[in-house]
């Protein structure tokens, strides 16, 4: 078929010399292209929480839940809630959390403080000492994991087992992310 197509969705644009015989196929192709554009979905997953040296242990009745939506072609929104349980063990090293789908390879990734593409925000709540609670900027450590950086207080740093504070039972981490997925 030698018809022209639109640049974004590839919709077929037959001219007057390309009339009816393929109309049904062309219409079906266009319908599928438009339909794919609205491929919205709501999903859940269980993020994997790890650390550079030793992964944290969530503890009894602790929860880690992730929900995510494909809002637009390739645009992913993620919401993660972590509640630390009784007997939580903080592990050691810089923390990371897994993503539901890999980030686009053109988005820069880095494990160093203040590096890697910023893809969202988080609030980390200290249940026993509210004044320790902090906002985090979440960024790509790899195309499948995120880490965090603190941005206030005396010493901004990477989110680790001891920064901005050592997590314990009943603490809460709430995260919201937006990023483009790897569609390859």
């Amino acid at each position, binding site marked *: 078929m030698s018809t022209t197509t639109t640049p974004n969705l590839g919709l077929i644009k037959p001219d007057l010399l390309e009339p009816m015989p393929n109309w*049904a196929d062309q219409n*079906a192709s266009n319908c599928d292209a438009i339909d794919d554009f609205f491929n*919205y979905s709501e999903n859940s997953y269980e993020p994997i929480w790890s650390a550079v040296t030793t992964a944290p242990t969530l503890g009894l009745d602790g929860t880690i839940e992730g*929900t995510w939506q494909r809002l637009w072609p390739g645009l992913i929104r993620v919401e993660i809630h972590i509640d630390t349980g009784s007997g939580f063990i903080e592990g050691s090293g810089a923390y990371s959390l897994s993503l539901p789908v890999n980030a686009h390879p053109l988005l820069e990734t880095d494990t160093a403080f203040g590096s890697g593409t910023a893809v969202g*925000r988080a*609030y980390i709540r200290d249940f026993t000492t509210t004044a320790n609670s902090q906002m985090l900027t979440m960024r790509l450590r790899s195309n499948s994991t995120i880490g965090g950086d603190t941005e206030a207080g005396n010493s901004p740093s990477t989110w680790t087992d001891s920064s901005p504070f050592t997590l314990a039972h009943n603490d809460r981490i*709430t995260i919201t992310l937006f990023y483009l997925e790897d569609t390859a």
Partner: protein
Amino acid sequence: MTVETTTNLNLSKPDDTEIGRLWADEDELHKANNVLIDTALGSPELLTYEPTLYATTTDPTIGDGGEINGWYKILPNDWIMGWVTILFGTGGGGGSGNWRLSLPENRDTTIHSGSASAGLGSIIGEGYFRDNSVTANSQLGLAQFTSDLPSSILFLTEADSSVRVIQDNSPFTWTDGDRLTCSFFYKAVFA
């Protein structure tokens, strides 16, 4: 009509036989498809609403010459992106207690949780809090769904040593000339 349809929008895809046999109806399929696409695209225009700023004890006062404005756009699948600006005027003040700000529509509770406590609800936006008289007090913060109402948010900050929810005296005492601006993005449920 038994034509094949797409999975997401139910667009009609008649084959050659169906086109010939249902030629008169084919135009109706076009119309129906266009309506489906148009509906899925959401509201094309930027809508306005009047946000309500209130507090758990005494509601804030915007004051003479003050302004509170809200804009939003309905995106496909009932997601809403919006913005609010507040300017306190003469005689304006923060009332007392933790602040709440109304949003244009209720949240989808299957996706977003709400809480009156800092850090326990879904974070759906960001804000900036400007102290007009002492700029150094100005802070950025996050917008979190509260549990009081399904269409209200509170604001989190790091400014104060003990308080994390914005109120009349946190991160500073709100008065004439101070400003709050925020953006939000969430999935709504329409009545």
